[in-house]
């Protein structure tokens, strides 16, 4: 048709009709939320995670919330509920010997891997040994394992070189070491990158997934606890952008999503349920407490003065008072070892007096290493630097833009003080960050008191442990290697229809699966 005869009016009319049709069909389609969100037993659960999986091989994958990519398909030996309680999963019973070095697990009978192979002690032993040799980043959580034995078909014995009472905790669904891989997968570990071989409620479907974008898991027909399988399939969508996560959960595209304090306010006003739990504890880690780089830091009075300089309430309220708590001690509220009403609070007069008596009335210059990934916009670091300036400590913030870059810099022993969050479900687990070489103890210089207390916590059992944990909290503040400031919450938005999503300070990362149907996520009936 010649251009000159283009029927403009007809074209416009056609366009209008097309737009109208598109709009009305769109309304009717998204109004029902589409098949993605058709929850309830037999439907699909669509959930969000902010990052891509480190690996779909449990031995190389991530821990904490990122364990969702493996926990859906791999049952763990022990299961941790939202309240932090440890309940049976593949192991129906477990116990330590009196020295906390020999852990004996009794395995569930009649469980099969998704390829049909039976679960027995030999398979569990092989899986644990593979984890120890695979070279994954979470190897340290396996503990000081000396040996793994399978004395009978349903008994596994893990012997640790030193007491390791946290052993059962790290055999739960949040840590790769606890997730059991089948013999077929172990025979060809590369296969675990694109297929799963566990006993879990779901199996990974590579054909229905898009790597780094959307991961689909389908019901495992041979799962040992079918009553706990609430869905035909579970989809984990990788959504890193906070506003996109909020939009997705608000419009029902996903039923569960991690939020930031800012997006949490909008989510709440949209009628979504919020599940929160303290997660990170932020503060200043005085890596150079020996004074190698900055001599002043070797003086405990100086470290105490720095601890007294921080205005924690102002910081917590600036970060969003609803989801952050001022914290003057090693652990967040709810963690074993946390002492109510205890901890550093701001006292500038006392801080200045300590600085003067330590010989630094005019303060000193302090390089502080931080990153702007977890500490968004370095808000926390800058607030703490501002407070330290009030007692004359002139902070020079060195900001790294990626976590690996931060880690490399921290390990270089060039930075006396670091800003890096710590976590743990007991004060001893948090203390481990400061008494074992690593990012938060790059100089590897242990304090005898804290090291002794850490060892004591590992050897203690029952109620005695809590007493030691509390001693750790106090000793940590006295030594002031770690100067706590604020505990920030994990915040999740949950579709009003989704039940059983719980979190606590002991378990701040809800996961949808549980061998016990009382804890598995499900839609309201």
């Amino acid at each position, binding site marked *: 048709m010649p251009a000159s005869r283009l029927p403009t009016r007809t074209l416009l009319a056609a366009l209008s009709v097309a737009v109208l049709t598109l709009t009305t069909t769109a309304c009717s389609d998204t109004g029902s939320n589409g098949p993605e969100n058709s929850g309830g037993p037999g439907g699909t659960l669509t959930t969000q995670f902010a990052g891509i999986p480190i690996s779909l091989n449990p031995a190389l994958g991530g821990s904490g919330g990122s364990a969702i990519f493996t926990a859906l398909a791999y049952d763990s030996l022990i299961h941790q509920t939202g309240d932090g309680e440890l309940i049976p999963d593949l192991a129906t019973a477990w116990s330590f010997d009196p020295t906390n070095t020999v852990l004996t697990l009794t395995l569930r009978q009649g469980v099969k891997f998704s390829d049909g192979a039976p679960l027995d002690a030999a398979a569990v032993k092989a899986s644990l040994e593979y984890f120890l040799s695979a070279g994954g980043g979470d190897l340290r959580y396996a503990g000081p394992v000396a040996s793994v034995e399978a004395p009978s078909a349903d008994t596994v014995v893990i012997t640790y070189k030193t007491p390791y009472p946290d052993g059962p905790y790290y055999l739960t669904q949040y840590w790769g070491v606890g997730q059991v891989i089948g013999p077929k997968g172990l025979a060809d570990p590369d296969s675990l990158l694109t297929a799963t071989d566990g006993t879990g409620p779901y199996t990974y479907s590579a054909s229905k997934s898009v790597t780094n974008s*959307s991961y689909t898991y389908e019901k495992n027909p041979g799962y040992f606890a079918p009553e706990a399988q609430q869905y035909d399939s579970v989809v984990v969508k990788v959504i890193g952008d906070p506003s996109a996560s909020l939009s997705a959960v608000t419009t029902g595209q996903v039923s569960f999503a991690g939020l930031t304090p800012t997006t949490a306010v909008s989510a709440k006003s949209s009628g979504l349920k919020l599940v929160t739990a303290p997660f990170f504890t932020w503060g200043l880690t005085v890596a150079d407490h020996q004074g190698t780089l900055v001599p002043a830091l070797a003086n405990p009075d100086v470290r105490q003065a720095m601890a007294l300089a921080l205005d924690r309430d102002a910081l917590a309220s600036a970060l969003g008072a609803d989801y952050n708590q001022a914290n003057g001690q090693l652990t967040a509220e709810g963690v074993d070892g946390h002492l109510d009403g205890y901890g550093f609070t701001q006292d500038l007069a006392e801080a200045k007096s300590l600085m003067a008596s330590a010989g630094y009335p005019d303060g000193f210059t302090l390089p502080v290493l931080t990153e702007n990934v977890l500490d968004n916009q370095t808000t926390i670091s800058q607030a703490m630097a501002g407070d330290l300036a009030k007692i004359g400590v002139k902070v020079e913030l060195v900001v790294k833009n990626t976590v690996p870059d931060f880690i490399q810099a921290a390990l270089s022993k060039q930075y006396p003080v670091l800003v890096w969050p710590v976590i743990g479900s007991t004060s001893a687990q948090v203390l481990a960050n400061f008494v074992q070489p690593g990012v938060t103890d790059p100089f590897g210089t242990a304090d005898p008191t804290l090291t002794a207390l850490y060892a004591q916590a590992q050897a203690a059992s029952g109620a005695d442990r809590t007493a030691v944990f509390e001693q750790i909290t106090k000793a940590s503040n006295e030594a002031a290697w770690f100067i706590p400031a604020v505990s920030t919450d994990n915040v999740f938005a949950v579709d009003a229809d989704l039940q059983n999503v719980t979190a606590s300070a002991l378990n701040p990362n809800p996961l949808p699966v549980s061998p016990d149907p009382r804890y598995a996520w499900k839609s309201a009936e």
Partner: protein
Amino acid sequence: MTRLIATRLALSVVLVVIASFVIFLLMSFVPGDPARTILGANATPDLVARLRDQLGLDRPLPVQYGTWLAGVLHGDLGRSVLSGDEVSALIVARVPVTASLLVLSTLVIGVLGTLVGLVSAVRGGVLGKVLDTVSLFGLALPSYWIAIVLVAAFAVAVRVFPATGYRPFADGPLQWLLSLVLPVAALSLGGITIVAKQMRDSALDVLARDYVRVLRASGIRERSIVFRHVLRNAALPSLTVLGITVVASLTGAVFVENVFVLPGLGSLVTQATTSHDLPVVLGVGVVFTLFVIVVNVVVDVLYGVLNPKVRVR
């Protein structure tokens, strides 16, 4: 024309090699260690060293690049160091998304930009001023920001379109189109205003020519003058601008894909860059380079179609 295409294609091989080497070089400057990224904060230095060795990161850069290039020549783009997937498979899975986004946005930019520009040139007055103002906004507002506003308005407040995600064409053409309306709108706004402004200026220029006056004097209908004569002549500079806009859309697509959580090449390369997944970054880099080359060849061919003088050269 055939020679032009042949020359361009030959040149593209050289360009791909240069572009991939530049990407390789730039990635080596990105701070952080891929092995450390993969293993996380708790990995011991021994583990990191072991993985560095496995990944060949200890070898000199030219050797690493040579190994990659040799693989490419054998049709192997390598494997993702993180997921273990074939890079080619990752790319193939994501090309439809980015291609849909770019093709639709090019169409929208081309058609709407031309129409608005022409109408504004012919009618002038208020429409011209409105176009000037809108172009200013269109150019000043980043597609990322526009995307967030569009989601808030048309996906969350009024639930007309999905807030995130992509539906393949196989799920139904309507579903596919619905999932792309907002991303395409976010990606196209800036381009429409640029093309429209260029088209208006060129059309005004052509409308002022003597031959148009002669055509009018000969009693040719205005509509015929505009669409048959003015459009053809004014289209040439707009075509160049459209080509540049389409190439620039590639950058916009990276952001837009992240906001709308579209599993395209843009979001793939973003994730790969932050996690130092070099084979994936290189693979996507090659695809992007090829895309730029193809767009330029298409623009040249269209130029030839519209302007016989170019064909002679």
